[in-house]
């Protein structure tokens, strides 16, 4: 009894004081392999030309790291950058040609109004000297990383033709400690793992974070009451709402594309079925009625239908059902085990966990061709989540000594590992595009 009391006191203290300390515990990223067809680009460090203290954040370096992480670019190492132009008139293209660069990104940082930072940037085609794009992005000094990610998004889009998704956030769950004293946390961080913030801490498991389409809320599953329950938490106010705590399973929340509904799995009626809840009225519609396990709803982008996992044919497979209910149609036919669909690109691509024997990997199904591309090499890979531009898939791998996250390009050619300093990382969910 006494130990229990001290545990409570300790936990409360940890909650009060551990908060800032935890924020420092970020994910580190290693690039595990590269793409030989990546485009060579040089990003020159952005010089600070203002009159106050130079910012701590190296904006040019963040732009370089983002482009490198995408797998689409091979960036010139910092030590090989020999000239430091900050505007077009200072660029000598022959130098960058000699360094075999296809693209050049330069920029400069100055002071804006009210202590803000102002970053000007330009990108060039080295061969012709053509200026591809240029602009200014301003923001608070504390948001210097956001400025850099937005510049990377513009450059990425100009060169690849695809909207960049560097200025986005990811949610994930961490588990630190040894059983029975594991501390679970629901975290939100920038897409590169920086600025991690704790949303929820719990002594019981947390699962299945799901972003609202406007990026202001997260729905998730917590076992803090002793059973699974679904909560929706507002990221700006911190306000949290219990949306489902029925007898049995309450899991797999997924916001509809218009943000008004939440699909979920509930088993109070006897076995797990898919339901859709109207968030304003809390009224619930049963979508599937089957004695099988029906879980892991994912909305098609038009909001008209849902994908889900069901073992109605024996082993788990992916099915599609109208968002108002009715007959479900199986859509995965290759592989013994297919689960946890993540949808991208107007529903043309579906990432899923594909299992065979003891090996579970992430595969992407192209619905046009019916072809599967395996994008992960691990043994226990799960929880795929597409970036909002479809270029990358974030997933969890638990087959190593501890759980880590990987982000892989959608063609599987490039992969990076996101590692927590201590403990397991799991259940990643890539957030939507952000609006300026």
């Amino acid at each position: 009894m006494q130990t229990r009391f001290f545990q409570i006191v300790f936990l409360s203290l940890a909650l009060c004081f551990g908060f800032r300390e935890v924020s420092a515990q970020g994910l580190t990223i290693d690039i595990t392999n590269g793409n030989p067809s990546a485009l060579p680009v040089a990003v020159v460090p952005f010089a600070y030309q203002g009159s106050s203290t130079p910012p701590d954040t190296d904006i040019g370096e963040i732009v370089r790291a983002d482009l490198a992480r995408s797998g689409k670019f091979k960036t010139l190492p910092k030590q090989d950058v020999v000239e430091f132009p900050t505007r077009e008139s200072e660029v000598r293209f022959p130098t960058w040609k000699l360094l075999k660069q296809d693209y050049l990104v330069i920029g400069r940082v100055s002071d804006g109004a009210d202590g803000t930072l102002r970053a000007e940037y330009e990108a060039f085609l080295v061969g012709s000297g053509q200026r591809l794009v240029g602009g200014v992005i301003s923001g608070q000094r504390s948001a210097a990383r956001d400025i850099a990610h937005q510049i990377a998004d513009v450059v990425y889009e100009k060169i690849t033709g695809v909207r960049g998704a560097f200025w986005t956030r990811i949610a994930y769950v961490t588990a630190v400690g040894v059983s029975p004293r594991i501390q679970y946390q629901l975290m939100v961080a920038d897409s590169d793992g920086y600025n991690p913030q704790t949303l929820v801490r719990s002594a019981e498991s947390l699962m299945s974070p799901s972003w609202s389409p406007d990026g202001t809320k997260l729905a998730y599953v917590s076992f803090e009451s002793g059973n699974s329950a679904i909560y929706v938490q507002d990221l700006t106010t911190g306000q949290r709402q219990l949306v489902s705590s029925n007898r049995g399973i309450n899991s797999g929340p997924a916001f509809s594309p218009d943000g008004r509904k939440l699909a979920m799995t509930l088993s109070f009626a006897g076995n797990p079925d898919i339901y859709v809840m109207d968030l304003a009225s809390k009224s619930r519609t049963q979508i599937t009625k089957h004695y099988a396990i029906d879980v892991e709803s994912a909305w098609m982008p038009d909001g008209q239908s849902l994908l889900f996992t069901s073992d109605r044919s024996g082993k788990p497979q992916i099915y599609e059902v109208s968002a108002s209910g009715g007959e479900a149609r199986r859509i995965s036919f290759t592989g013994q085990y297919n689960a946890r669909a993540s949808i991208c690109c107007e529903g043309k691509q579906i990432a899923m966990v594909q299992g065979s024997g003891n090996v579970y990997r992430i595969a992407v199904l192209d619905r046009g061709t019916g072809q599967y591309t395996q994008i992960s090499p691990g043994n226990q890979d799960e929880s795929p989540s597409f970036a909002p531009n479809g270029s990358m898939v974030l997933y969890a791998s638990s087959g190593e000594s501890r759980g880590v996250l990987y982000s892989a390009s959608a063609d599987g050619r490039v992969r990076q590992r996101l590692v927590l300093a201590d403990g397991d990382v799991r259940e990643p969910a890539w957030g939507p595009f952000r609006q300026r």
Partner: protein
Amino acid sequence: MNSTLRIIALAAIVVAASACAKKAQVKETMDTSPRTETTTTERSDPAGRYSRGDLDTDACLRQRVVYFDFDSTAIRSEFQSQIACHAEYLRQFSDARVSLEGNTDERGSREYNLGLGERRGNAVQSALSAAGASSSQQNVVSYGEERPVDRGHSESAWGKNRRVEIVYSSR
């Protein structure tokens, strides 16, 4: 932003603290239960094979974990006697309550495993009910792959994790 963080932190503290307090209460009731139990036993221990103390001493009743084969919810024959003695105990003590906590190994998807854990819990519930326990005495909870007893990635670890734990919330 800072004040937002503070609000989130505060909410987390309240929730965590109340969750802990709840658990502490349960623990407390359990800690004091031997005394209450003796009185209950003296007053109205229903006639039958067991006394309430047998939960701690009887070789069969002390077995409270049913293990499963991979991707299976079938109760193996070796666990039939364990099921039978718990059913007998529950039949005799109609005020006793159990939680049947279903668990899986780590393989495959977490959400699906939550379903599989529940299916295993239901299998034990059906077996206990068939052997004489009332379904109102039993509550199935699934933890899926969230509560492994062995965090290894081998067949031996997985075998230990595919289980239903019979937990007496009231004895």
